[in-house]
């Protein structure tokens, strides 16, 4: 039971990075990103390939984070002045594009077989691998949390919020909105990549089918429950979503009347229904 709890906490932490990243883009700056899983995947694969090649844990994490950030900045720079709805389509399309590349380029990342044998960081003396990993994840998440809090409170955060409220005003005081939007996308994507690195390390095996749109929807739901804004609320709601979804994964041992595929399908149906319910509550008529 305690093992299950640790697993849920680790998953909550991993999705916490991704959700904190989405919160910078969407919650703070108002840029919708339906393809956060793309940057998650870039981080996961970069980390997996590097650490299998013998690169030390911290360096592999740093490179994975940076490369995801570069991808994020590139997406933002290629889509300047794109309307909200078009940005939604492009980001969703981009995430599927990334998945297709990973699926088809066997030389790069093993194609459909994925990458196996991704190492974990060394365990702390006297502690198990799972517990050690939880501690490392928690430390990294604390750092990411401190970092996003700083962004929220510092001038850059105020500018990003101002872009969300009225881009014209920001431009009129001489700030280049595109540069700030690019920064927001870069930071958000980098955090997703950081989460991806931990994801690959924890599971030790990754394959393209793990990076479908449901991961993006996971974190969208979490940020939405957290009312798009504060990092604290985002982290708490991510923990809630992870507990609900990863928690139901554990039901597999107790529920025998549905098979694995059916249970997986049921969990994703519940996620879809939950997203619908959250949106209905959050945007019900008469709410500002």
């Amino acid at each position: 039971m305690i093992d299950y709890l640790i697993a849920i906490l680790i998953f909550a932490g991993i999705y916490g990075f991704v959700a904190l990243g989405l919160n910078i883009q969407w919650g703070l700056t108002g840029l919708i990103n339906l393809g956060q899983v793309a940057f998650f995947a870039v981080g996961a694969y970069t980390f997996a390939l590097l650490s299998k090649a013998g690169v030390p844990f911290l360096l592999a994490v740093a490179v994975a984070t940076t490369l995801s950030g570069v991808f994020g900045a590139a997406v933002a720079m290629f889509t300047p002045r794109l309307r909200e709805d078009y940005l939604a389509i492009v980001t969703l399309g981009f995430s599927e594009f990334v998945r297709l590349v990973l699926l088809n380029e066997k030389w790069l990342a093993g194609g459909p077989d994925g990458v196996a044998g991704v190492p974990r960081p060394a365990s702390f003396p006297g502690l198990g691998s799972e517990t050690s990993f939880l501690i490392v994840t928690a430390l990294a998440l604390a750092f990411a949390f401190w970092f996003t809090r700083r962004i929220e409170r510092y001038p850059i955060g105020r500018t990003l919020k101002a872009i969300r409220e009225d881009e014209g005003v920001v431009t009129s005081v001489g700030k280049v909105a595109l540069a700030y939007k690019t920064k927001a996308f870069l930071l958000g994507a980098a955090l997703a990549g950081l989460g991806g690195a931990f994801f690959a390390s924890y599971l030790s095996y990754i394959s393209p089918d793990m990076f479908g749109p449901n991961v993006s929807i996971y974190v969208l739901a979490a940020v939405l429950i957290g009312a798009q804004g504060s990092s604290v609320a985002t982290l708490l709601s991510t923990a809630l979503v992870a507990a609900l979804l990863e928690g139901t994964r554990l039901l597999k041992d107790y529920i025998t009347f549905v098979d694995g595929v059916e249970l997986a399908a049921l969990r994703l149906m519940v996620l879809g229904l939950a997203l619908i319910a959250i949106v209905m509550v959050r945007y019900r008529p008469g709410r500002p």
Partner: protein
Amino acid sequence: MEFKIYLISALVMAAIWSLPAAAISLIYGVLRYPNFAIPEFMTLGAYLTLLLCGFSLPLWAAGLLAAVVTGLIALAVDQTAFRFVRKAGILPPVLLSLGLMLVLQNFVRFGWGNGNLQFPILPMRPFIIAGFIITPVQAAIIGLVVVILAGVFLGLRYTEFGRAVRATSTNPELAIVTGVQPERVYGAVLFAAGFLAAVGGIVLATETSLNPLLGWRVLIPLFAVAILGGLGSVVGAALAAVLVGLTSEFSLFILPSSYKTALAFLVLTLVLLVRPSGLVKSRS
């Protein structure tokens, strides 16, 4: 020879894409949001057809019934969920459609599993006309799609209700002032979109096979087609479908076939960057 094979295959792809793309385009034009659940209505329509075929209905009857039922489901979801966020901007319906996408796709997965299934149709000898090889199923798909598209086009153009739909698309406030009831228009558009998407899914499944990812796999080409066609324009969607179909088939000369969807994504991004109003300027 190779050229003729690719041409037929491009036209069949275009025919299959044009109906669901028209559905996306109609919803976008009238309700102004991209509906990511449309590809899942394709999947649902195909699986409902399979279900009905199991009751020894002929394929055409099963397909028609399934398409109507899918249209009704689309209408019901609109009335129970989307209706309540009509005035809340573009984001809420987008998020709702994402949620709906997950629900529908996994409903099918829950019911029928992950495997590939086939409609009960026998393989038939292809026609050869002037060197073009076309199977009877492909010929039927192209014919059916042309008839349905013509029907939608004429309906929008020349009927009273079609005029109300176009008016709501162009200027909702003015349409209301002139006595159009927008909710009736929205309802009809959603039913039509569900119906068109289902027919698209059924014909796609006849050409390929049934799979829970049937619709999801064509999401990007569909949005490329709908946007390239100028959102809200059914004729535009059909023309754009032919163009994207030709591009992606003839790309096979230089790219592996697994990259068809990726290519559609590049087309989509280019169109959004260079000419977001689409090829055919819609009349709004």
